């Protein structure tokens, strides 16, 4: 696949923190409407990779392109988010002193400048969209409660809902099922697969049964670069993967 056809394109990306190479010559491609799972041991650089894509960390070298043409290394977090890249953090981060509905309203794709926000009135379409998302993430009954009252798993769902409200082309989802029950985990896999029919989703996870449910292409990251890539069965048979990750 040439760069022009990709949605996300990383080539030869490296970043080091105080001499420690967290990302080392990493190359990775995400296609349009692709669901891709990323696994790898703790400290492999998965979260750092998302930091680079979303503008939180600048790479020391390498190319990062969105939609084939937009150089993400030149943009800041807000600009990248406005381009259409949404991110769920490893530690669920919602606005705890806002209601669940307000959390979604804040995420909803609308002009982001100060004065538009001041004079914003949700119209019927906005309300309908928020209702729809509330329903998808099963929080309709609690819409008026403060987000602080949610359980860990529910916060994860709210954050996925906020991602949806942003209406991004690419969702980066960092460890979405941590703190969820088995049933919730299954539901989350369904939800993400559903989302990936109309947008691209990159999921970082440790939970192997969840990865299996996703039935997606798997990229194994280790020590900051790609170790193996392919179906879950393919990568789990790879001796290097077994040694560096699965075997431990």
């Amino acid at each position: 696949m040439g760069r022009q056809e990709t949605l996300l394109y990383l080539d030869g990306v490296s970043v080091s923190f105080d001499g420690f190479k967290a990302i080392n010559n990493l190359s990775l491609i995400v296609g349009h409407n692709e669901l891709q799972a990323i696994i790898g041991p703790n400290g492999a650089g998965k979260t750092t990779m998302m930091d680079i894509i979303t503008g939180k960390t600048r790479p020391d070298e390498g190319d990062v392109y969105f939609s084939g043409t937009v150089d993400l290394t030149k943009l800041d977090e807000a600009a990248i988010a406005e381009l259409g890249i949404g991110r769920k953090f490893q530690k669920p981060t919602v606005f705890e002193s806002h209601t669940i509905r307000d959390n979604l309203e804040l995420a909803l794709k609308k002009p982001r400048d100060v004065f538009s926000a001041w004079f914003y009135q949700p119209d019927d379409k906005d309300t309908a969209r928020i209702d729809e998302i509330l329903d998808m993430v099963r929080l309709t009954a609690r819409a008026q409660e403060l987000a602080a009252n949610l359980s860990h798993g529910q916060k994860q769902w709210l954050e996925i809902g906020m991602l949806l409200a942003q209406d991004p082309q690419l969702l980066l989802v960092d460890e979405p099922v941590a703190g969820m029950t088995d049933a919730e985990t299954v539901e989350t896999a369904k939800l993400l697969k559903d989302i990936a029919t109309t947008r691209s989703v990159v999921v970082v996870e440790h939970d192997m049964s969840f990865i299996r449910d996703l039935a997606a292409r798997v990229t194994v990251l280790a020590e900051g670069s790609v170790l193996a890539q392919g179906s879950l069965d393919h990568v789990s048979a790879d001796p290097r993967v077994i040694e560096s990750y699965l075997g431990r």
Partner: protein
Amino acid sequence: MITQTLIRALDRKALFVVALLLFIAVAVPVSNLYLPEGHPLRVPDHFVPLFGKYLTYAMLALALDLVWGYCGILSLGHGAFFALGGYAMGMYLMRQIGDRGVYANPVLPDFMVFLNWKELPWFWHGFDMFWFAALMVVAVPGLLAFVFGWLAFRSRVTGVYLSIISQAMTYALLLAFFRNDMGFGGNNGLTDFKDILGTPIQSGTTRAVLFAASAIALALAFLVCSAIVRSKLGKVLVAVRDAESRTRFLGYRVDNYKLFAFTASAIIAGIAGALYVPQVGIINPGEFAPANSIEIVIWTAVGGRGTLIGPIIGAVLVNAGKSWFTGVLPEFWLFALGGLFVAVTILLPKGIVGAFTGGWSALKARRASARAEEGTNLSGDLKTSPAE
């Protein structure tokens, strides 16, 4: 669109506060001017400027709360914006003195004649006109806040570092205004005012009008703040306070939001300062003292930050306490203030207003759960009031 935003700003609580302030704006002057001396309902003469001063402090605390309580920016330099607004008004009042000064110079204020200056410095031009001074009251604090905020927020200075540089800002201004050659009257500041808008500044009527103006200005500032915090803009500010980087990853330019809140807040503080000066009759560099800015933080914390009513209550109560205390036990006021701050931080972390609304919603929750238990619906989850 704008009207809707304004209507939303006027919920029942806000309406009550605005109505109360407007009532005070009328009742206090009327009682002072028209009731006969000795009438039990008459507000005594010296109370009018004193209460008026409290109202300007309340406005200052409200301004601080907009950035601290709602946006998480703990400014320890808000006294500077207040003082700059005050100086702009003071310069107008100085020019109003005209040739009635000790040296009877029709153009130069006394302190300039004393310093042997022959000409009015360029930055004193225009201050003989009220409209120009009024513009500067807004523009100077607003511009300083804009430049300061632009530099600080763009380079992502937050938390304690921001507090420290805001304190450094007011301290630098304190030192600058102390110097005679700055042209603002040095450590004596600006005083001995005679007229405001052609009427004697000491007259009962003028004082009553200044009081009413302070109450109305506070009501307007309250409305503006209410329109901000109850809109989506206000929700973004709270989002920035609680999870700044999350807000950024949603696509909001956090620095612009902070800059807006900071500048708006500085303008409100400047207007408060401009109303303060004619009522106390003096403005000097002491208003830039770092301790003043810290006191504003204490008023706000005592009343309850993150509520719009809290800072108003806090500013009035603490300053009324200060007036009383400095009358009976002047040496102990600073200890009392420090003790109050510690006590409030430990016992009432959300201030007086927070304690009241917290108690009220806990009561409502208890009633609701009692009702749920009585009824057949046993599944109703017995939520206690939210921790926030």
